[in-house]
């Protein structure tokens, strides 16, 4: 995969992730700033680093699983690896206006 193709797939992944909402806030997780990083390597393996609004939230595992499922179906992705992190912790300032 070329660098340009990787960028295209990353953009497609971010677009796809907009269908996932944070259940409490009702906004999609991309605009909320919960997706910290998206990358795709040459083998089509997508790496997503994400967080949740609250550490220890019961919704965390569901959101992580939803992201994995969603990314897997993006054309150009062969495998999806999702990492949940709280470094740095999410703050409301990370939301898109």
């Amino acid at each position, binding site marked *: 995969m070329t660098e340009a193709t990787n960028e295209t797939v990353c953009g497609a992944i971010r677009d796809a992730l907009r269908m996932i909402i944070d259940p*409490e806030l*009702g906004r999609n997780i991309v605009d909320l700033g919960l997706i910290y990083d998206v990358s795709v390597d040459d083998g089509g393996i997508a790496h997503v680093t994400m967080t949740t609004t609250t550490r*220890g939230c*019961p919704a*965390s595992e569901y959101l992580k699983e939803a992201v994995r499922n969603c990314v897997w179906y993006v054309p150009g992705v062969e495998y999806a690896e999702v990492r949940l992190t709280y470094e740095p912790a999410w703050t*409301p300032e990370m939301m898109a206006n």
Partner: protein
Amino acid sequence: MPGATLSRWTMSYFAAACLFLVIGQGIMVAGYGYPFADVDAPETLALVHVLAIGWLGLLMVGALLQFVPVLVAAPLRGGRLALPVLLLLVSGLLLLVGGFGTMADLGELSPAMLPLGALLLVTGFGLAAAMLAATLVAARPLPLPARFVGLGLLALVATVLIGAVFALVLSGTVASDFATTLLIHGVPSHAALGLGGWLTLTAVGVSYRLLPMFMLAPEEARGTSRLVWWAGSAALALVVGRITWLVLDDSAAQGPLAFAALLAGIATLLYCADVIRLFRERRRKAVELNIRASYAAFVALFLSVVLFIVPGARAAAGEGGAALVYLFVFGWLTGLGLAQLYKIVPFLTWLECYGSVLGRVAVPRVQDLVRERRSSLWFCLYYGAVAAATGALFAESALWFRAALLLQLIATVGLIAELVRARMLSSVAEPLRFPIGAPRPHLFLPIARQQE
């Protein structure tokens, strides 16, 4: 996963708690307990424990099973004990109430009910405290909200042990001088430890985490919040110290209790300042109904504690400051409990039903599971009725008290009906209500094992 999953039996705790709340208020509307009987009459004792253990105790234990893991971002220890604890608490309470019935000569009831009920309650609350304390201990160092819960659990253990001694004396099982002295002089300490220590300190701790979560307010612990913890700890130590003093000297003065009340007043003022600050600093401008209803409960907390410290107001509030205790139990503890249930029940229902299909199909928001306009009327009626009932107790008008209670009961049933509608997803628009692959939640029985 670091953190919390869904607590399997929390919804069953909530359902049992709501049932006892309706029963308790129904008993009062029917004219049982204070002010239709003395504060220490068996009927009043039965009523008080239906509300304190059946409603508030089950509500708090059920909520903590879900939220202690959230507070410390670690899994619950001993989660398999949740169902046995629920059964122990419910059966212990029923026996305890039966025991009070024996004292009131209500039919042919066994005198063994009171001590047996106490034994089951000590076992049930002891196991619950052990599960939650083990979870907290494993997650040290604890954030401030969790430290409040730790303090509340200590108060719970003290409350239950003192109550067990009372049950042994009242049933005639034990006749030692110490136990009798404790019964004669220790009832205010028992009530203060239960309502102020266990239920209030725990609620305060959980609110320090939930309010910033729901309002998107800054989560860092402030100096005032730490002072609330220290004042609460000192007040708790004074109450426990006085009980110990009673063991050594049965003429123990009321001084420590008065000083503990003063500390509780200071803690209340600081806590109210904290919740006002959180509201002002929130990033989420739209304020949902659960938050608005919680702030009404904070007003009740402020009024009941501050007026309790003023000697003239307490004297005017009836036997043992009954009107202010009523405002504390129904305005503060019950008001906050109902307000938080209004958020927690839809939130857990959403996770149960839509969590597993998130990312595959379109799903509603948590807020789509409720209808705020109708529910806000129920909350207005509820708080209005609590205010009227408190006023009627001040005015010593049993008739008006009963009328206000009836409205309070109607509002409570209305709010519980809204919770049932949320569980049944009745308010969710049809295309989103039952997506393919989404499990349908049961009304109050546990979720599927694989989601535990």
